[in-house]
């Protein structure tokens, strides 16, 4: 059978689809124009704000520079002094600060009954210490143990341990190792 009819409906569908695409393209044009103006305005607004801020900061900087330039000699001296003082303080911190910690230990031992004899004392810059206490009798040494557990004595140290003890007929000795708490204004 010969096909003699034309399917006009099919072409109309295609045409409408095509027309719809162009409708969206036109819509996109308006959207892009709107977007362009939006971006253009917001960029200009942002740039204007940045310019204002930069101008403001530049004028602040100019005023401060003017102020600083009036006293350029003083500024050089202050910088020199501060750098030197900073180095000095760092160097001074390398000191073991023997005497304040020695006095701290001696003074706290004075309140002990019986008071032990401090045989040796050692300290480094990290406040690590080692000291030896001597007692004339073994009983005195055992009594002293109640003192070292006392809060007032323990607060002088970050940590402290009994490292060694020795006893003979004439004397008994205790060796402690630990770390002092930091003293403010040591010297």
């Amino acid at each position, binding site marked *: 059978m010969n096909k003699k009819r034309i399917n006009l409906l099919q072409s109309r569908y295609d045409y409408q689809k095509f027309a719809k695409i162009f409708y969206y393209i036109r819509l996109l044009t308006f959207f892009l124009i709107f977007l362009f103006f939006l971006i253009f305005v917001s960029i200009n607004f942002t740039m204007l704000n940045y310019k204002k801020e930069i101008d403001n*900061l530049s004028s602040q900087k100019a005023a401060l520079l003017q102020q600083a330039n009036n006293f350029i000699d003083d500024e050089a*001296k202050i910088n020199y002094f501060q750098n030197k003082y900073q180095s000095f303080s760092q160097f001074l911190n390398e000191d073991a600060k023997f005497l304040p910690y020695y006095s701290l230990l001696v003074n706290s031992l004075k309140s002990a009954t019986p008071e032990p004899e401090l045989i040796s004392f050692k300290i480094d810059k990290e406040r690590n210490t080692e000291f030896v206490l001597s007692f004339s009798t073994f009983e005195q040494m055992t009594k002293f143990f109640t003192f070292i557990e006392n809060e007032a004595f323990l607060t002088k140290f970050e940590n402290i341990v009994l490292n060694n003890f020795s006893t003979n007929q004439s004397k008994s000795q205790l060796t402690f190792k630990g770390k002092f708490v930091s003293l403010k204004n040591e010297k």
Partner: protein
Amino acid sequence: MKNKIFVYYSVLIKENLIYILTNIVLIGVIFFLSISSFKKIDENKKNIEQLKSEINTLTLKNNNLSLFRKSNFDIEKAIKILNHLVPNQEDYFSILYALENLSKKTGLQIISYAIDLSNKDPNRLRLTIAANGDTNTFLNFLNEYNFAGKRLITSDNLSLNAEQQSGFKIDLTFYNQKNENGISPASAIDDKNFFKKINELLAKTEFILKESSEEASIIIDYPRKVNPFSLQ
């Protein structure tokens, strides 16, 4: 019929060609505008950050300046004292002189010293001294050694033994530091006790300038021969 349909399409395209071209141009413009403005925004942000940090440094300098002015603090005197304590260059004679001074002031007799040459630090010079004295002079030494020699002296490790009769071995460190002015920016004086601490230090070390001026006033301007072998 097919040609007729094609004509419809071509008319549709012609009618909308301006929109298609506008869209292409707009997309391009928006793209380049966005990229260039992002670059500019980034540049501006960097500029602002740099300006802010410069302003902070300048404010810090000016604040320090006004604090120093308000405090009536004799900065020149302080610099002189600090230059004595921590000189810009190491000078072995000043070390010997410091040890002699220290010995005189504390009573601890320094009998020998050994310099640790293995120490590669150019700002520190370590030496071990052997000294004679009793426990009291040693404690006196410990009270004075930081500044009494007119040089900053520290000891990072010290021990005292009651059973030790008279000899002490002490490790000492002397310091020097060249002050490269302007390289490191001044730091903020945020410690409220800053001037109090410095004034305390000056009170402790003021003797350095006093003693140095006394030494400088010793007359060394006596007549000397130009030619030591001449008779006149």
